[in-house]
């Protein structure tokens, strides 16, 4: 990982900013963030595997209004870094575990940034209300700077955890299997819960069941 650390860090910051502040092209989705981190590390399969699991977790999130949500994008970059190189269930379980912790920290950090942004707005209320363009641009760009710093810190912490996590987590073969099972089970639960929110109404549920039947047919006959 160390020879690609710079690229991983850059990717982690880009992914962190894409979550809300810059563009929102959804490179921050774990599927994309994890796969690209895997490409950077020369192991796209490990990257996409942790990306798929974390994407299921992310399906539970509806980022509406003032809701608070984990930063699964930077989590997926850290998860891919932790998972690369480890075979099968070993890497996936440890990687996703690291990814969940980083996503949690990232979500908490977003909240802190937004509280600090609000404080900045309060400090410049008079200028903002008076239509001072320097105050508008200043508050906006300082807020952007805070999110850059947040993304940088979370990406650094994530990659540090990815480096030391697999060494510190006391895992034997049985523990690795348990971890893999727990992560996949929890991811499926998250996705089902997310779908439940999408299909709250009866007609939505019908379409979901239809899709489920098609997916099952695809698995059985595919």
């Amino acid at each position: 990982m160390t020879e690609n650390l710079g690229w991983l860090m850059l990717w982690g910051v880009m992914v962190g900013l894409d979550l809300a502040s810059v563009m929102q092209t959804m490179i921050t989705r774990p599927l994309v963030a994890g796969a690209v981190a895997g490409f950077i590390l020369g192991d796209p399969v490990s990257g996409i595997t942790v990306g798929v699991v974390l994407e299921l977790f992310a399906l539970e999130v509806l980022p509406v209004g003032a809701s608070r949500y984990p930063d699964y994008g930077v989590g997926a970059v850290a998860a891919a870094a932790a998972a690369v190189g480890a075979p099968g269930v070993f890497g996936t379980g440890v990687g996703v575990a690291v990814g969940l912790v980083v996503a949690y920290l990232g979500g908490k950090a977003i909240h802190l940034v937004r509280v600090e942004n609000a404080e900045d707005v309060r400090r410049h209320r008079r200028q903002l209300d008076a239509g001072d363009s320097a105050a508008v641009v200043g508050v906006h760009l300082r807020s952007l700077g805070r999110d850059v710093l947040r993304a940088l810190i979370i990406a650094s912490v994530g990659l540090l955890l990815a480096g030391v996590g697999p060494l510190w987590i006391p895992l034997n073969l049985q523990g690795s299997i348990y971890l893999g099972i727990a992560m996949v089970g929890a991811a499926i639960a998250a996705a089902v819960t997310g779908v439940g929110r999408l299909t709250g109404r009866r007609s939505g549920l019908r379409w979901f069941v239809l899709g489920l039947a098609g997916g099952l047919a695809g698995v059985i006959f595919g």
Partner: protein
Amino acid sequence: MKRGMIRAGIRTLLIQASWNYERLVGVGVAFISEPLLRDLPGGVEGERYKAALGRAAQHFNGHPYLVGLAVGALARVEHDGLPPEQITRLRTALTGPLGSVGDKLIWAGLLPVASAVGLVLAVWSSPAAAVIAFLLVYNIVHFALRGWAIKAGWSSGIEVGKRLGAPTLKLGLKVAGPLAALTVGFALPVVAAWLVRHVEAHELAGVGLIAAVGVVLARWVWPTLGANRFGMAAVAVALILGWL
């Protein structure tokens, strides 16, 4: 004004950078609107520019991709010289619908659909195909919507409400939810089967048990727990069991 529209269009990509608990995207709206207000009589030192920018910086909420509709419309009515009270009423009236239309169309529609397409391709094709397909499906609609919103807002002005009832938007709202349910429904068993492909039968029972506990907790017992915290709790339990 064309240059102002281009600048405002580019600035919409940063709309949420100053999101805060005080005015939500209010400051972001002012940041985007600023290039569109420079041509007001008196220029950037004029009273109308300052009053308009001050109004733009007040509390506002809306989906980030559709906020351009409000930005364009509010800038237009400032140029049309409508009374400040009427402009404030228009701003207040747009807050709710822009949020709810965007949330239904994008967060509960387009995003899960693109995600499901990416997930299925990750399993059935390749990581590169999954990433490219996801980004294409999502961003074609995303950027089209952003571009349309600011232009439609500017051309509509006070009549902007009619644009929210545009046939294409209505159709999008009608199909977004069912399409999301259908595609995510399809993707779930495909992905689940792929993730457990090397798992023994008794381990599969463990996956099913944890999934069932997670769903029951989230839906009926502890809805505010969240998947992230449930996942971390599952990590802790797995580590303890492995250690024992």
